[in-house]
């Protein structure tokens, strides 16, 4: 919902800083639970998971999503007061929103695909 607000598709009458400030803690909490349970799942079958191509894609995408959020916070979000009420935020903010939506969609799909072992890395190659 935060990203949809950022690209100007949802909650257009709500100031962006409010969405960020009031939904942020819920996102952080949900993310913490996902990381903790994800680590447990990984810990159960680390070798098989590490050799799985979708797992590698997922971790890479997670890093990119973190980078995207970090860049956003340090650049266009610094001047949020100037566009807080805009139904359609400035271009750079919208780009960050679309990148985030795309990356998280890939993370969901890649995460689901970890269950399939079509392209596992051959342990012999290590």
């Amino acid at each position, binding site marked *: *919902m935060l990203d*949809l607000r950022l690209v100007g598709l*949802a*909650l*257009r*009458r*709500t100031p962006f800083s*409010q*969405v960020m400030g*009031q*939904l942020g803690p*819920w996102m952080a909490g949900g993310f913490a639970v996902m990381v903790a349970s994800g680590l447990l799942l990984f810990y159960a079958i680390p070798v098989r998971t590490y050799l799985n191509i979708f797992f590698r894609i997922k971790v890479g995408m997670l890093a990119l999503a973190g980078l995207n959020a970090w860049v956003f916070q340090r650049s266009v979000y610094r001047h949020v007061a100037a566009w807080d009420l805009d139904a359609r935020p400035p271009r750079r903010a919208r780009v960050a929103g679309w990148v985030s939506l795309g990356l*998280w*969609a890939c993370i*969901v*799909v890649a995460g*689901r*695909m970890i269950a*399939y072992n*079509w392209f596992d890395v051959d342990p012999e190659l290590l």
Partner: protein
Amino acid sequence: MSILSFFEWCESTAIGQAIRSSLWLFPVIESVHLLALALIGGAILLVDLRLLGLGLRRQPAAELARDAQRWLTGGLAVMIVTGLLLFSSEALKCYYNQAFWIKMSALGPAIVFAFTVRRKVAAAEEGTIRPVWRKMTAAVSIGLWLVVAASGRWIGFSG
């Protein structure tokens, strides 16, 4: 026609057979199912948290509900279509799967509740409905959808 023979028929349709015999189709449809899940999860929680007095507290619940409605309806439509496709590929497995029946038993009430009671409560002007009823509505909504999601995940573990 009994339920069992209806399920057998679903599995024998061309669509069901095509999805079953393909390596890629099931995971791809399942991924779309999950993406739509993420969407309606956000659309539902946004309003339910607000009814509980949490989240976007400075916006009226009615406004949030209006904004979230089309995402909820759209996401739900995608979920139902992809869900039916997934079901058609393994209807018999579902028939003997307890988690599937738990999911369906919660899904019906969850959808009905979302488009009747919850919709009315969320759309009501601030102050016209007592906070305790708003909170109850949100709790029932979250509870029902949680059962749907958890038992849905469980279909893949059992049977």
